[in-house]
């Protein structure tokens, strides 16, 4: 962990993708692992499909709930346009960016000419290392819909050791925080993400 022993994680996505849940799971896992934790989130109207960034900081002693601009250790993006927004926090010499490479057009109805390949190129220019993965394509193989990208990305980051928290703490937090009816599907997604990470 850099920056005087505090790990700085940004989670970016849009309202409805499970950004809040993911931040909460990781924050709880960090607590179970014995760290001091601060996790900043936003509620209310901004969530109705709009851009959403959550922050999780953990370490021996955490002061600010907000990460300072340009000082993230890891950015996990659930969608690429939102990942680019989160590059406000990126450091060319430090930040690892792990992003779901799928693009969800921010405009209603029609795809306006947004070049998703250019977005990916721009994201790469902000971080030390960028890892892209098409999450929902893989998720579709194990469950009915394409939800739970949040669980996929969490599991992937843990398996790749990008997120310095042990798997057992993440699973413990998931088990405690997810509703029972969603637990099984989440576990399936968690396992397929783990497998994907191993083979990649």
């Amino acid at each position, binding site marked *: 962990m850099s920056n005087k022993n505090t790990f700085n994680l940004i989670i970016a996505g849009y309202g409805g993708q499970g950004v809040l849940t993911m931040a909460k799971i990781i924050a709880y896992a960090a607590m179970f692992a014995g760290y001091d934790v601060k996790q900043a989130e936003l509620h209310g109207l901004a969530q109705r499909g709009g851009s959403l960034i959550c922050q999780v900081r953990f370490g021996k002693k955490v002061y600010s709930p907000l990460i*300072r601009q*340009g000082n993230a250790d890891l950015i996990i993006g659930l969608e690429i346009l939102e990942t680019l927004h989160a590059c406000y926090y990126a450091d060319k*010499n430090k930040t690892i960016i792990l992003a779901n490479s799928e693009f969800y057009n921010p405009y*209603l109805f029609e795809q306006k000419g947004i070049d998703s390949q250019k977005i990916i190129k721009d994201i790469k220019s*902000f971080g030390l290392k960028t890892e892209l993965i098409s999450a929902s394509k893989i998720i579709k193989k194990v469950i009915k819909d394409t939800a739970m990208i949040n669980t996929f990305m969490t599991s992937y980051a843990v398996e790749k050791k990008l997120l310095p928290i042990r798997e057992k703490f993440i699973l413990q937090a998931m088990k405690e925080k997810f509703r029972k009816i969603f637990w099984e599907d989440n576990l399936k997604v968690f396992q397929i993400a783990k497998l994907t990470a191993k083979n990649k």
Partner: protein
Amino acid sequence: MDPVLKNTKKELLLGNEAIVRGALEVGLSFATTYPGTPASEVGNVLAKIAKKLGIYFEFSTNEKVALETAAGAAFSGLPAMVSLKHYGLNVALDSLLPLIYLECPLVVVVADDPGSWSSIQTEQDSRWISRLGHLPTLEPSDSQEAKEMTKYAFKLTKKYKIPVLIRLTTRVCHTRSLVKYGKIFPTKKKGNFYKTKNLSATGSLPTIERHKNLLSKIKEIEKSELLKTKLNKIFKDNSNKVGIIASGVSYYYAKEAINEIGINLPILKIGFSYPFPKDITKKFIKNLEKVLIVEETDAIIEYEIRQIAKNVNPKLKIYGKDLLPQIGEMRPEYVLVALSKILNKSLPKNLVNNQKYFKLQKIEKRLPNLCPGCPHRATFWIVKKALGKNKIFAGDIGCYLLGALPPYKMADYIVAMGASVGLSHGVSKSTGKKPVIFIGDSTFFHAGIPALINTVFNKSDVLIIILDNRITAMTGHQPHPGTGITGLGEKTKALKIEEVVQSCGVDSVEVINVYNINESIVKVKKAYQKKGISVVVAKGECRLLTVRKLARIGVRTPKFEIFRQSPNLEILKDFGCPAIRKHKGKYYIDENVCWGCGVCRQIFPKNIRLKK
């Protein structure tokens, strides 16, 4: 089990949840609120746990009533608390100010929203109200402090017989951090009201007498509490000539900045900010050459310091809002930049780099939307089809304020809870035109009724559309007087909006089912044609609520599909459902997004069908 009730040594809590835990640890017995983000979770958590603990809790019809109700409990000897968002405190202010004179032992929690993350009106700094009303005020920096200060607030309010304000900001309300748990204190189930002249004595003499008492009480608090409290504290008291004074979450941004620069600067942390702690401030600034003041949002502490420094250290260089923004929320990088400037230090490379390159990046913005299947979208569509786009449209506070955004753009003004009605009445009287008002169910009960009565009384000419989605949706699905359920989860009378409207004297009242498009269009047209005040109650349950109800019983929402392409489908662009998309000239419905309201099928019955 709710995290605030866990039998554990420490727990991750939002600042709002920590307020509740703190209150439980001193025997909270009575709590009220009207939902408002960023304060919402205080009420939401209480709604879940109050009954079990024997606490009385209610969602009141508005903040003024909420505060008055809690004050009634406080006068009856129960530990009582009201929680509000910043504008909510404004609504309640009329009663709060006299309650301070009347020695009401009430804890008031207010959540300001610097950065306007969940608010559209203003970036109000509620600490001005502390000064307006002589209201002792505490400013926690994180969840642990939120809990501790709540406990302290209950002690203060009892000891000095005065309301106490706990002032939060978004990043305190909505940050999870670790909280050490104490024991939950049993609630007091029954209060006693003692008849006394003190509450009812009227006339200018008693008022002046009370004012005098209040000011001497504030003096007493300054002398006794402020001298011994640990909420105002000097850290790293050393010989360094540059210091920082900070309150709330800004204190932690200052800590981070100091750590990054690597110089041990002294900090004065202000936790008890009204009455202002003059003595510790004098001691702190006496030998400094420069001081940086970090606070959200206005320069309130800065103003106090400037006054104190005049006598104690006139040469002191005071930095505050000249280096830090007064607009938007405080951020760690702003404090780092300001402090580096004062100390003449260079900025970290990764900050400089990001500042340079990220600024150049042009990124498309993702605006918030009404949910797929939202009844408000159907209502906007109906009204647009019935009346066109060129009427004067008034918006109000609720999810439907998103009707101001494309593709509808049907809100010419949005001001404050219930303000749509009064404002439109004024516009109508001045222009002779007939504005169309969109106001939600909870907002109507909150502040719409007096304004509605005014339109009848003063012979207005407006069309009021009350969007009845059966819940207070935007703040997270709290019940209201039309829901039939109280904050404690008990059954109660469900007021019918159309009956309320009728009893206010409105003759033209029409009820529509917004999921029945064609019939609703006809009814809205007719309602508009009537001279004078007419009301349409647009019924349609919040789709998110419907979907959640269905999920609970294991039912998946139906999905629709486009089975026949047609150039006419381009019209759906103006409908603005996030599930309906066009790709490479073909129209389709994203089944991961569709929540099955079926309005699009009503618009295009020959092209869209239920997906099997």
